[in-house]
């Protein structure tokens, strides 16, 4: 708003003959009436006088601003008079007043009154400006002085506002997420937050963990941020970052190289992210490798599948725990009503495993249209439908569901591309008719074609595993255990783990032994480290020693990631040590024929572990072996 929008030439009276307060007020009100701002001059005068009663509106420096907010005002306006000789207006500083502005504001809730006042004060603070006004010879000159000053002020404000848009303190926002949402998510967030604090940069990191997102970014925070760091190993909602400079990276990068990321983000050397309408972070626009994209799709499936496997697996295990083997060995697990109840509930949850896996792989690739197609593909892999026997014959199980998920995802993407050529009028029926109908039809054909092949492969692997003598099972245990400890949450670890899930899906003794070896292999690294921080104190920094005990808990909970900070600090010595420990534990678990029907849970699922006493022994010996290796390989820390 400009002062001159409110102050008209007719509203100015220079060299007003008024000699006292009341006559000055009358003169100002007369001007308002003349301009046509008032409905009722008498009522407005009452409002003005009532205001003056509460305290003088003379603010010093010869200036007075009587004002009134009243229903008697038709339109907001400003009038001005000058009395060069000055009159007594009971000013705060006791000096006579010679420049008068009167604000008339209608009785509405609007802040016009305040804005005019503020604007006027900003101008009047310059004493030479006030002096020029008093000395003005004509109303035109008076207005011109105001106009010039206002233009000058506006320029100053906008000049001030421009650099203010780029504050010296950089603001960043970030999102971290990993497939399991337990460790990497929070470690990456912490690494970013700590480094940013060190560099004096303002950052807020949203952690999309397994228990839902924490510290969710608001639209305002995203808006205000200079750049966005997305350190995620699974797909997250990217639409909100459209048009922002976004760095897309992995949690691993954020954990190991937070400084690089933050520097890159604050240097402004970041390309603008354009959302493609997909939830997917790994759209072609980003230059992620194909392998990494595939990994991300796979992990989106696995992370959604896990709760079903965990819940279902543990309930099934409880069923076996409660059942009486002697009643009917061939029906073990459902012999007593209670056991049967647990088994069927758990089994129902288990039944969702493959559809969910395939569905969410497909969703990661092709967004929502992919879900249904992948889901059905996964279900077909689970029933084992073929052309000859559509009701189910040779389940292709985990491998089949993987194929189904990727096939469904790319199939839907392919259909989307083809459908681009369809007329606009058909846009609406694509997601509700074309994609589901054609997609499910085609995935049905695909699955019926591959089920016999993958099913046979599955059967072969199963037979191979079951045919393995104890010796080869022990070797497998060493291999899987060592894989779990190699990169702690990385691809090798996940590959071993996925193999465990696949074996679990077979629901046989061998599969359960494999899962047991894998879990013990994953539990050993943090425990081995915790032990080593106690027995080999001089090999660890004080900070490492302090975080040692936490690793006990991490290990017991099967959170292998707890060992990462130690491994990252000294990979060449720590990782082989941990691989030895986990390998030993895996081998022993196999040798003792320990079984596990749940894919996760650490110490909490020990009650349902088969041959639990020996399983504990395997864990203990593995951890001690790892600890011993650490003591052997790690160098003393010099004080």
């Amino acid at each position, binding site marked *: 708003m400009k002062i001159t929008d409110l102050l008209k030439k007719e509203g100015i009276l220079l060299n007003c003959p008024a000699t006292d307060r009341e006559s000055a007020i009358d003169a100002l009100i007369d001007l308002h009436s003349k301009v046509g701002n008032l409905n009722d001059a008498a009522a407005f005068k009452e409002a003005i006088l009532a205001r003056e009663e509460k305290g003088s509106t003379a*603010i010093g420096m010869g200036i007075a*601003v009587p004002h009134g907010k009243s229903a008697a005002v038709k339109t907001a306006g400003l009038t001005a008079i000058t009395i060069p000789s000055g009159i007594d207006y009971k000013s*705060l500083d006791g000096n006579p007043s010679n420049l008068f502005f009167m604000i008339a504001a209608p009785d509405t809730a609007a802040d016009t009154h*305040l804005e005019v006042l503020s604007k006027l*004060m900003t101008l*009047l*603070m310059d004493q030479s400006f006030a002096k020029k006004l008093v000395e003005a010879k004509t109303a035109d000159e008076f207005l011109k002085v105001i106009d010039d000053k206002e233009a000058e002020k506006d320029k100053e404000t906008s000049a001030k506002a421009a650099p203010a848009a780029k504050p010296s303190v950089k603001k960043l926002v970030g999102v971290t997420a990993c497939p399991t949402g337990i460790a990497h998510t929070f470690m990456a967030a912490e690494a970013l937050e700590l480094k940013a604090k060190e560099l004096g940069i303002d950052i807020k990191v949203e952690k999309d963990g397994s228990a839902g997102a924490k510290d969710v970014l608001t639209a305002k925070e995203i808006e205000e941020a200079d750049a966005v760091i997305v350190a995620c190993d699974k797909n997250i909602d990217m639409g909100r970052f459209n048009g922002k400079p976004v760095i897309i990276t992995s949690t691993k990068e954020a954990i190991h190289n937070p400084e690089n990321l933050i520097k890159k983000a604050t240097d402004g050397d970041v390309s603008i992210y354009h959302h493609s309408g997909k939830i997917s972070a790994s759209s072609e626009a980003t230059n992620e490798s194909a392998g990494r994209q595939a990994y991300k799709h796979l992990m989106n499936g696995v992370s959604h599948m896990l709760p079903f496997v965990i819940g279902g697996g543990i309930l099934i295990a409880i069923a076996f725990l409660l059942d009486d083997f002697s009643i009917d060995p061939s029906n073990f697990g459902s012999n007593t009503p209670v056991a049967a109840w647990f088994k069927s509930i758990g089994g129902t949850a288990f039944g969702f495993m493959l559809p969910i896996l395939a569905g969410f792989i497909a969703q990661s690739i092709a967004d929502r249209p992919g879900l249904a197609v992948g889901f059905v593909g996964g279900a077909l892999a689970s029933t084992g439908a073929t052309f000859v026997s559509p009701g189910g014959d040779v389940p292709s199980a985990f491998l089949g569901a993987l194929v189904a998920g990727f096939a469904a995802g790319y199939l839907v993407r392919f259909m989307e591309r083809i459908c681009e050529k369809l007329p606009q009028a058909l846009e609406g029926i694509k997601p509700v008719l074309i994609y589901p109908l054609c997609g499910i039809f085609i995935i049905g054909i695909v699955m019926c074609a591959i089920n016999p092949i993958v099913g046979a492969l599955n059967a072969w692997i199963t037979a191979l595993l079951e045919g393995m003598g104890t010796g080869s099972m022990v070797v497998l245990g060493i291999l899987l255990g060592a894989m779990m400890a190699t990169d702690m949450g990385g691809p090798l670890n996940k590959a071993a783990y996925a193999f465990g899930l696949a074996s679990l899906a077979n629901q046989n003794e061998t599969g359960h032994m494999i899962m047991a070896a894998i879990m013990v292999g994953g539990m050993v690294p943090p425990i081995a480290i915790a032990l080593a921080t106690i027995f080999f104190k001089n090999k660890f920094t004080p900070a490492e020693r302090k975080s040692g005990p936490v690793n006990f808990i991490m290990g017991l909970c099967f959170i292998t990631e707890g060992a990462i900070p130690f491994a990252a600090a000294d990979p060449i010595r720590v990782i082989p040590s941990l691989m030895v420990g986990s390998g030993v534990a895996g081998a022993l678990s196999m040798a003792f024929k320990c079984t596990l029907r749940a894919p996760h849970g650490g110490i909490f699922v020990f009650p349902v572990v088969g041959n639990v006493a020996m399983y504990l022994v395997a864990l203990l010996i593995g951890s001690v072996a790892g600890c011993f290796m650490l003591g052997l390989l790690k160098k003393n820390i010099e004080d």
Partner: protein
Amino acid sequence: MVSQVVKVTNEQGMHMRPASLFCQTVTPFSSDVKVVFNGTAYDAKSVMMLMSACIKCGAEIEIQCDGPDEAEALKKAVELVESGLGD
């Protein structure tokens, strides 16, 4: 220096009377009193400065006092704003 963030609750915001009142309240203190609003610090002992800030109802302002009687000055100033600036 002591400071506190307060919310301006009187309906009309920091118009002339509240501004004068605020100014009169803090002027007797020998401490420097500033009102920080929208990233700018205004001298609270100048009515014009205060009014030029255009502090509307609901705005959050930070009152900063610096000097020998800063605590007392801040207390008075915060009380005044919280009581609705005499409106």
